[in-house]
């Protein structure tokens, strides 16, 4: 196990900061090894490449089809959703959006704001608390460091179910149920240990000479953390931010447990209530609000792709 990484994943964090696709581009192109051969095989290789692309595109299309169809259906009158498997609506209808927006007790914007608040708190919490812990693990020498580090790593694998009941008891005694505190405070306390690990990996790749120079200039650890590590760790912080955003936005289990009053509902809980309230009768507006709920994730995906791919590739997070 020990040196597994030599074959594979050991990419010191800053090296990993180079867009991972560049390594792919450095590899020879599709025509590799065919240059010196006569024309026949070359043509065959080209046909092969075209077929491969056609296959990959077709497969991608099939994979995304349900999503595209949901977008298309959200603009169709209800009756058509059950009759039209195609993507182009014969009739465009925006009432799904207006109906869906107002279908629940509060307008949908209310739930969007609630989700945004939870996300903001979680972002702040993870960025500050995880980077602090990571600094200690990456740069400080203290008693039991390896033991604590191992405990931190193991806590990443811990299923939330093992702690959820006592957490619920604790938070209800604090009268935090139906507030956002049970969702945000744990993040302020660095319980998303995955991000500590991510940042430890990154910090370790930053040359120690920088800290040493700063120490000679009289900087203490707080200043090194604030003025050297954090500014140099923007890629790791961005990865943390994007994953925190998407995971918190999509999180269902803990929000379902801690938020039971309609005015505190976040988007996933509101959607789920919507399913229960309307049953199968209004797929159109259900789809419309589902699309609304996915748009922020999609935007995060569009703008943060580079960091997402890098993040998964180096740590294996999902």
């Amino acid at each position, binding site marked *: *196990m020990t040196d597994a*990484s030599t*074959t*594979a994943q050991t990419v010191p964090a800053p090296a990993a900061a180079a867009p991972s*696709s560049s390594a792919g581009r450095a*590899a*020879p192109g599709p025509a*590799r090894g065919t240059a010196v051969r006569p024309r026949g095989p070359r043509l065959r290789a080209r046909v092969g490449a075209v077929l*491969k*692309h056609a296959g*990959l595109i077709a497969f*991608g299309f099939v*994979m995304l089809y*349900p*999503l595209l169809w*949901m977008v298309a259906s959200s603009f169709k009158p209800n009756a058509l*959703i059950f009759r039209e*498997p195609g993507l182009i609506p014969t009739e465009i209808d925006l009432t799904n959006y207006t109906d869906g927006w107002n279908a629940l007790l509060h307008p949908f914007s209310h739930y969007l704001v609630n989700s945004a608040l939870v996300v903001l708190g979680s972002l702040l919490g993870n960025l500050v608390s995880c980077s*602090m*812990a990571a600094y*200690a693990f990456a740069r*400080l*020498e*203290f008693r039991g*460091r*390896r033991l604590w580090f191992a405990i*931190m790593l193991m806590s990443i*694998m811990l*299923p939330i*179910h*093992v*702690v*959820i*009941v*006592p957490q*619920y008891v604790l938070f209800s005694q604090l009268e935090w149920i139906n507030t956002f505190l049970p969702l945000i405070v744990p993040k*302020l*306390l660095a*319980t998303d240990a995955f991000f500590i*690990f991510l940042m430890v990996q990154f910090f370790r790749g930053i040359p120690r000479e920088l800290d040493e120079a700063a120490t000679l200039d009289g900087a203490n*650890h*707080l200043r090194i953390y604030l003025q050297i590590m954090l500014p140099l760790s923007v890629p790791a912080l961005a990865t943390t931010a994007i994953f925190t955003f*998407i995971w918190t936005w*999509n999180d*269902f289990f803990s929000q*379902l447990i801690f938020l039971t009053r309609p005015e505190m509902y976040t988007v*996933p809980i509101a*959607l*789920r209530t919507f*399913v229960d309230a309307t049953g199968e009768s209004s*797929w159109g507006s259900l*789809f419309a609000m*589902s699309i609304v*709920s*996915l748009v922020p994730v999609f935007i995060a995906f569009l703008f943060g792709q580079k960091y*997402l791919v890098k993040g*998964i*590739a180096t*740590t*294996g997070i999902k």
Partner: protein
Amino acid sequence: MSVIQALSRTRQEVSPRRKGDGRWALFFLAPWFVGLVLVTAGPMGASLYLSFTDYDLLSPPEWVGLDNFTRMFADPRFLSSLGVTFTYVLVSVPLQLAAALGLALLLDKGLRGLALYRSVYYLPSLLGGSVAIAILWRQIFGADGLVNQVLGLFGVSGHGWVSHPDYALGTLMALNVWTFGAPMVIFLAGLRQIPQMYYEAAAIDGAGRWRQFRSITLPLLTPIVFFNLVLQLIEAFQSFTRAFVVSGGNGGPSDSTLLYTLYLYLKGFGSLDMGYASAMAWFLLLIIGGMTVVNFLASKYWVFYDD
């Protein structure tokens, strides 16, 4: 470096010996440490205790010894949810990883448009855990859903997939396979670490593409396969949202989608049988931990380390 590797490495790490960081460590670790005690380790201990009690939130917990555990194994719903979960995990995870590996192999080798393909295939992994996608799944596999509409074009009339006990779990597995993008990206990163010269040397020795795959790619990729396997198994055992939404919160029809964590939720937060739910949670931890240990032990026989 993956978490798993880091965990097995912590012992050998060497770092320059310095003094006087203790107080700073206390400062930087304070939030994490408070969180560890109050949000993670404390509740863990508490739930272990609760698993030996009868507790309904309203009256204080009452010690019942191993009662919850013996009740679990006499509870047909528990046993069936265990079976459903194992079926779900053991079928969908290998399929998901096979898809991930297959696509990663196709996308490797400096394919033009790689970044675009990777994004398209990865997108479902980001969305797959959401309530919105579960809602979509419930529609497309419904009686009048997209799948049956498409089948109808070919003159086939399908079942109501999500409402049929034989097929409902299959729709959840399909959803899990659909999110193969994340392990695929990990495979792609692993493929890139294999030195090109290995292939060049093999080609000079006359090895064909299949032979190169069998003798170079596959062995050098086994650590990544192992890593993905451990990770995806742990994840799949905890699937909740899709089962909850697709089944309308009850694991139906006929408990066919009653995944472990859904039953745990229904027990703990539906019928307030918190002692039982805690016992279930600890048993889940035991399953996941046990499976991971078995995986590590078995890895000696098939995972290849290049050193």
